């Protein structure tokens, strides 16, 4: 439980908070990137290098960019004229998410005594081991994910592209 952990945790949570609280959507996307970066560093801190770099590549490199594109394409940069950025019944949502946090925290407190398991030293998880596992035990899952990504790619293109006048497609 070192000093770096607390800094990274604070960074991540702050980024996440900013991402959901800021009014300007572009700022939200930037804050989201900060949260993602903090998470990636937390992964590195957990000795999960591969997952950390995957996080950086996928989330910061792709998802955050996608979000920015979506914001620009839908012209959502300007805040709505009537009322705030929050739903009219935001209070209910807040109560529910507070409830979720309470339940999670409660579970955490309940299980405190059993949490001191596992080795304190870093386990070895080299890229070679991960590659072997991906091509061995998890090869079916890998193939399915590949298929899923292809389907999502095609699906996203079909869903988002312009429908031409007079033609019925998609």
């Amino acid at each position: 439980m070192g000093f770096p952990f607390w800094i990274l945790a604070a960074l991540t949570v702050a980024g996440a908070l900013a991402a959901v609280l800021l009014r300007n959507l572009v700022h939200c996307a930037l804050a989201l990137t900060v949260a993602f970066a903090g998470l990636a560093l937390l992964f590195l801190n957990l000795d999960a290098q591969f997952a950390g770099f995957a996080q950086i590549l996928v989330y910061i490199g792709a998802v955050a960019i996608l979000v920015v594109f979506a914001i620009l394409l839908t012209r959502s940069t300007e805040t709505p004229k009537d009322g705030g950025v929050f739903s009219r019944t935001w209070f209910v949502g807040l109560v529910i998410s507070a409830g979720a946090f309470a339940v999670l925290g409660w579970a955490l407190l309940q299980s405190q005594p059993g949490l001191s398991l596992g080795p304190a030293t870093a386990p070895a998880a080299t890229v070679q081991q991960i590659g072997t596992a991906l091509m061995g035990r998890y090869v079916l899952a890998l193939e399915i994910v590949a298929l899923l990504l292809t389907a999502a790619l095609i699906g996203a293109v079909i869903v988002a592209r312009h429908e031409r006048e007079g033609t019925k497609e998609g």
Partner: protein
Amino acid sequence: MIQEAAAAFAPQITASAITGILWLIPAFPIVASGIIAVLKQPRRRASAALAIGSLACSLLLALAAMGHVLAGRFNGFAVRETVNFTWIQVGAAQVELGWVLDPLSAVMLVMVCFVGLLIFIYSTGYMAHDENFTRFFCFLSLFAGAMLGVVISNSLLLLFMSWELVGLTSYLLIGFWYQKPSAAAAAKKAFLTTRVGDVFFLLGMVWLFAQTGTLLFYNAGKGSIEPLRLALLLVTPSHLGMTAATGIALLIFAGAVGKSGQLPLHVWLPDAMEGPTPVSALIHAATMVAAGVYLVARVYPLMQAGVQVSQSGEVIGSTTALTVVTWVGASTALFAALIAVAQNDIKRILAYSTVSQLGYMMAGLGVGGVAVGMFHLITHAFFKALLFMGAGSVIHGCHEEQDIRHMGNLKIEMPFTFLTYLAGMLALSGVPIFAGFWSKDAILESTHTWDVSRAPFYMLVFGAFLTAFYMMRQVSYVFFGNWRGHGEAHESPSVMLLPLMVLAFFAIFLGFLGTPFWPWFRAFLDGHPAEFGLGAFKEPGLLALMGTSSLVVLLGLGIGWRLYGNKSVRADDADVLEIRFPTLWTLFENKFYIDELYGVTVIAFYAWWARVADWMDRRVWGGIVTGVSWLARVGAQASSLFDTDWINGGFDKSCEELANGGGLMAGVQNGRVQIYLRLLALAVVVLAAILIWSSRG
């Protein structure tokens, strides 16, 4: 009901090569359906070839499996081979799936594949002009695969999964012409009504798992319906003085009631005739609706658990579960036959006839054991598929006309359809020699000797009379008398007639597999050798019973011919019976007003419940915030305007809210994704809290 345990073959359990690849039988059509799904619409020939080819492969495998079972018989043992595997392992509990090859599943496999194949071929002619030809074959293949999955399952869970898949394809196919509002409504009705039964089925399954820790039927003595676990279930008490075995059996039977259109969940089956006719033939006559009967046959040891057996091996009395099965079956048989008398839609008559015959099967299972019910299932599958396809041919030939009052004298224009239809009709009526005679007679014989009550016997005999009567009425209207339709009728193409002829052959001769003098079918299912002998006829009462049932059938046919045969009538003439018995006729014609009854009870209750949910939504979810702000506003103004704002305003406001809430029936479904999301999150939070709470300590 003679159990010759001593003479029975010893069961053999090890799996052979054919059992190892038994899973391919459902896999072929499912894979074919997947490929057809991605084919383009104009690829009609390819999609039909794929569907038919895959089912033909399944048929070959099914025949090989049948051959294996038969070879086992010759070598003197009853084949019951299973392949089981663990699907999910959670801690010590594990969920296992598996399939089984025994006489019961082998017979069903061959029947489903064979009838299915004929109907597939027939469909290529019937659906030739439909623009969604490929979609049709995609659904049909998926259905065939799912149904075969039901048949080979050795695990109640695998059976349930296939069962639900069958329900889904049934929904898709009933609503195949979804542009018609009536078809879409019928599809929804079928799906929801069968779902009522399925919920009970699911409960029974969970209960069974909780009690026995396994859902496998047979697992080398450790399966849930093998004696070891059954003994456990029998000593476990549950509510209302039932044992757990009875409770579970009744819950599972409720699932069968939904699927097989038994009282009181029969309402969906006649409406399901909105689908294309091959679908009615395959799904709503031959296979899917028989799945409920098959399910009861499959879990028969559970249904029969705890029955008293005398020293000579005869069953004394009945179990609670089987008594319920018998009564439900017998009532359905009579009730649906009465309705069928007063229907005018050619397919609806057949639909009620199907409901009625399913009742016979259930009653047969209830009193006579697996073989009696299953024999009627198999023969019925052949002749009812024949009748439906004949009706399809008639509808096709009469330019999509379904009202029998607008047909007539088709024996001239459609001779082949007429002859095959006649074979099916005589088989269904139970005229001697035809298949239906032997199987129906076996059921009547069992009910005759039932220890509990004689009433089901009389109900079924009267039902047999009605069956002969309404079939004669239908045939007279359609094939005799004068032509009352519009345009000219024409015979169907040979691709449709060929399957009819094949089925007609079986409708006539299949019954000889299970006659009293050579009860091969029963011996095959029960696993002991069949003996040929005319000695069975010397059994007291048997010949008399056969004579009586033949007499009843001939009486029904005769009265039908007398009232309807070869008469010239106009299409808008009132029915002969309608003139003589107007009250009864109206009652039958309106199907005993069951749909209306459900309309004012169940559906009204749901509408009321939806209003309650709507009110909750407005007051609790949407209303919390408005309520809070409203309170704040009231609080701020309380000092000066206490009286007007609080008393009057508050009262008006609540009245208004109440009126709004009561007036609309939108339920929680107000179209806001975020509200759905919140409900979802709330449910998850509550669920997690409950889970953590219950696992504390």
